[in-house]
């Protein structure tokens, strides 16, 4: 029986594209196989045949109405493959739903969908992904047919909206068939009105007397016309009722009499007939049916594990052949008809009370060795066997899935039910992982310590448990700002790696990705930029969905290193790459992006795009009010303080810089950057000596601080001391353009003060050219008064215009919002120009402004022209906009 369906195997998903790495998923993509006694109903398949004409078909009927097999029968007769997807628990989460649906599409041969991305977060799907999907489908020559069976299991309302969006925009590239017990919330009335909907509902699904007669014939029952009519009336043509009726009647010995009695009865049909049919099965078959009712799907071996016998193979084949209870999914897997499964479960509870959890336990144990982890965990949890369930998770090395991947939400929800009484190192590891992944991070160390002790009590402990400990320890240490502990834990993890089977490790790419990212963050906190970069680059290299959050986090950390070493454009590029990756994998506001916004804000401050910087910082604080780790906390403090400095709010900047960032070990760069802000505040307030004092420790250690100290010396009127400091800065540690531009400007200003205008001009030209490449404006605005005069001089601006052109590569990825060409140095507006601009901002006309200011119209025009030139614009609205941006109004 099983072998003859060999050709019906659905195409297995291509390696590496399966979102869950789960071969059992294929049973969700399998077109159910109609049994031998299935009645082909041309009247209905013809209606479905109209599908190529309507984008949407809804087969909408009660349980047991024969919806699934009708569509399966139709699909099997089509010439081209159908993407079939039986919705299960994934209907609760849009991310998982779309990941599976995309997989079903790819498995059906829609090759052009390979590179459109996939959701990596269970709860969300990016709108961009849906748009790409719709566009690719729209571009197809012939439509792809998608069948979503059991669509009533979709409980997340947004999924239906998203499906409606894709359907609407896929044009004629998508034909969607929904098989459901509940009417979907799509705008069906509109589709009905414009004729784009085919509906098959209960009334049509009901068997006509002719069809019922044919079905009964297939079951070996030859009834008279009146008997069939009476039967159809009693069952209302309900497929499940007719099927059970045929089985019960045939088994009764006297079908005619049996049916007469049934017609006169008043019982609920399925309930009554199922009990009758079940009653007449051999005891072994009854026992098997009751026991497998706890399973969503099963193969003979799994059924045997539940019965403790070895007869499930032939029993299941016979049940399928006689069209009783079971459906065949291919690959030797079956499932109970959903209607019968529910009723059988009620019988199980009645006849074998208390056995249910034991059955779940047996199923979990069988699946532990041969099935998908998610099913193992579900049955382990249903059995209430939490030690086993936690152990299954830890032994599968799946602890990392609490932090990344589609399963994280499911895992969290599943183990949320774990009672405090569950013991063992694995249970404590699971608790620690949930706490570290959620808001209760402080409590994690207690459980982590308990797991470690429990595992150590019996010798060195199992490698799986120790690896779990090492992973969580690395994360915990990183969050606590304890780089040495993180380093130690990561080393332990690497050593354990060798003791564990390679095949198991290969299934968990998230594990090394998480370890590397956490280790990189810890190294970054310790100021070991090169070592951090080495591991973070590896973590940032992947491309799959399972590792998306740690990858984006690694990109954010790399961006911060670039920022701290003075490479704003590189920092921006890495940060934008993280954002693009998050979009590709539909991560809405993932933890991995926590660093991206403050880093981009700091870059914006250096470019004097202060409103953008403010918006980015506001966004970061809104998404996650409490920064998750010391690195992010420090980065936010520094970016905010720099913004306040740039706005001239030195008191506020000093206060911000004084914000304590809790960490086990202080971070050298966090301290240096704080000193930098404090020194700049003192400098702005005219206290250069204090500024020099604040930077004393950092000089020589950090290039930016050394340059800042040199600038303070200059402000104190000591160009020689400034140059001396700069000369001592080693060339290989001079930092990127954000540092070198500032150093050049200090040197130029020193040259002015020493009465060497030629050198000053030469240095200033270099500084301006470098600044323009990186679009740096803040260093120029910070320059002392004598230098600003030089920078504004026409000679210099002229030299710059003929200077090096912008590198195209550096600009390519900058969002258009900030890519505006702007003059490098803003010449201060005169009082009159300001007056004119202010009135312009109030929407006054030139004439009105002239009257208001008691000057001629021509004078207003002259002021305007001059203001336009200084602001680098040529339109009124732009002038107002730009002046607001620069806070000139």
């Amino acid at each position, binding site marked *: 029986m099983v072998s003859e369906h060999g050709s019906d195997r659905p195409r297995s998903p291509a390696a590496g594209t399966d979102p869950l790495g789960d071969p059992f998923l294929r049973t969700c993509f399998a077109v159910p196989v109609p049994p031998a006694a299935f009645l082909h109903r041309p009247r209905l398949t013809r209606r479905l045949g109209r599908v190529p004409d309507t984008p949407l078909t809804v087969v909408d009927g009660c349980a047991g109405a024969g919806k699934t097999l009708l569509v399966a029968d139709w699909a099997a007769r089509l010439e081209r493959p159908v993407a079939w997807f039986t919705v299960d628990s994934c209907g609760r989460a849009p991310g998982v739903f779309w990941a599976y649906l995309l997989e079903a599409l790819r498995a059906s041969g829609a090759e052009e969908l390979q590179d459109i991305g996939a959701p990596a977060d269970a709860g969300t799907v990016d709108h961009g992904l849906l748009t790409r999907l719709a566009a690719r489908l729209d571009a197809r020559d012939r439509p792809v047919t998608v069948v979503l069976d059991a669509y009533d299991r979709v409980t997340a309302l947004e999924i239906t909206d998203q499906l409606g969006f894709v359907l609407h925009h896929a044009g004629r590239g998508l034909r969607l068939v929904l098989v459901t017990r509940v009417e979907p919330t799509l705008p069906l009335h509109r589709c009905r009105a414009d004729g784009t909907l085919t509906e098959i509902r209960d009334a049509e699904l009901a068997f006509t007397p002719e069809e019922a007669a044919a079905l009964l014939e297939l079951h070996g029952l030859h009834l008279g016309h009146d008997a069939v009519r009476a039967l159809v009336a009693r069952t209302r043509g309900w497929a499940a009722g007719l099927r059970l009726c045929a089985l019960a009647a045939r088994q009764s010995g006297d079908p005619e009499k049996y049916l007469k009695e049934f017609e006169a009865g*008043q*019982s609920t*049909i399925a*309930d*009554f007939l199922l009990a009758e049919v079940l009653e007449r099965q051999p005891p072994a078959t009854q026992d098997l049916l009751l026991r497998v009712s706890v399973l969503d799907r099963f193969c003979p071996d799994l059924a045997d594990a539940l019965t403790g016998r070895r007869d499930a193979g032939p029993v299941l084949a016979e049940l399928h052949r006689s069209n009783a209870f079971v459906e065949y999914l291919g690959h030797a897997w079956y499932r109970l008809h959903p209607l019968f499964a*529910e009723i059988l479960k009620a019988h199980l509870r009645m006849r074998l009370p208390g056995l249910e959890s034991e059955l779940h336990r047996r199923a979990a144990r069988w699946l532990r060795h041969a099935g998908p982890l998610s099913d193992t965990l579900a049955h382990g949890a249903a059995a209430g066997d939490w030690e086993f369930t936690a152990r299954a998770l830890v032994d599968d090395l799946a602890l990392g899935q609490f932090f990344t991947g589609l399963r994280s939400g499911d895992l969290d929800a599943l183990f949320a039910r774990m009672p405090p009484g569950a013991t063992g190192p694995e249970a404590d590891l699971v608790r620690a992982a949930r706490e570290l992944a959620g808001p209760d991070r402080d409590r994690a160390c207690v459980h982590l310590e308990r797991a470690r002790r429990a595992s150590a009590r019996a010798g060195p402990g199992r490698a799986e448990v120790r690896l779990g400990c090492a992973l969580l320890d690395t994360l915990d240490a990183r969050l606590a700002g304890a780089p040495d502990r993180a380093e130690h834990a990561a080393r332990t993890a690497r050593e354990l790696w060798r003791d564990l089977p390679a095949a198991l490790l290969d299934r968990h790419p998230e594990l090394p990705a998480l370890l590397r990212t956490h280790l990189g963050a810890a190294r970054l906190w310790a100021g070991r930029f090169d070592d951090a970069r080495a591991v973070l680059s590896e973590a940032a290299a992947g491309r799959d969905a399972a590792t998306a959050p740690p990858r984006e986090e690694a990109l954010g950390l790399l961006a911060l290193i670039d920022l701290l070493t003075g490479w704003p454009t590189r920092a921006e590029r890495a940060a934008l790459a993280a954002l693009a990756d998050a979009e590709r994998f539909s991560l809405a506001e993932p933890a991995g992006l926590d660093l991206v916004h403050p880093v981009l804000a700091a870059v914006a401050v250096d470019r004097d795009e202060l409103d953008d910087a403010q918006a980015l910082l506001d966004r970061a604080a809104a998404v996650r009010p409490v920064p998750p780790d010391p690195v992010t906390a420090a980065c936010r403090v520094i970016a905010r303080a720099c913004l306040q400095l740039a706005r001239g709010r030195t008191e506020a900047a000093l206060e911000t810089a004084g914000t304590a960032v809790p960490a086990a070990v202080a971070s050298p760069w966090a301290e240096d950057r704080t000193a930098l802000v404090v020194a700049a505040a003192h400098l702005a307030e005219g206290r250069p000596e204090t500024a020099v004092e604040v930077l004393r420790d950092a000089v020589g250690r950090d290039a930016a601080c050394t340059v800042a100290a040199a600038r303070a010396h200059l402000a104190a009127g000591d160009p020689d001391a400034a140059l001396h400091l700069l000369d001592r800065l080693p060339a290989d540690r001079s930092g990127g353009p954000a540092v070198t531009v500032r150093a050049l400007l200090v040197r130029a200003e020193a040259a002015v003060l020493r009465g060497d205008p030629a050198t000053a001009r030469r240095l200033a030209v270099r500084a301006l050219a470098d600044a323009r490449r990186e679009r740096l404006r803040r260093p120029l605005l910070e320059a002392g008064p004598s230098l600003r005069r030089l920078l504004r001089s026409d000679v210099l601006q002229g030299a710059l215009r003929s200077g090096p052109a912008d590198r195209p590569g550096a600009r390519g990825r900058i969002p258009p919002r900030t890519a505006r060409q702007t003059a490098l140095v803003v010449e201060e507006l005169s009082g009159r120009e300001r007056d004119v601009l202010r009135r312009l901002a109030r929407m006054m006309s030139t004439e009105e402004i002239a009257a208001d200011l008691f000057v001629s119209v021509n004078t207003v025009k002259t002021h305007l022209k001059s203001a336009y030139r200084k602001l680098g614009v040529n339109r009124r609205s732009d002038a107002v906009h730009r002046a607001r941006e620069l806070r000139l109004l």
Partner: protein
Amino acid sequence: MRYEIRVDGQMSETLAKAFPELDHVVMSGQTVLFGPVVDEAHLYGLLARCRSLGLRVLEMRRVPE
């Protein structure tokens, strides 16, 4: 709140076990399930359970406490 759900046909004792939180009474050609319903979610859950057991709901009404 308390509800009464009237379904078509006489339910067996076994099937009634699928609604352990409700009492039931079987009458001519119909079964009435009745009892406390926690909230809307529970109510819709009961309807879905009827649907998945192949029961035809004839009437459903809230009854005074």
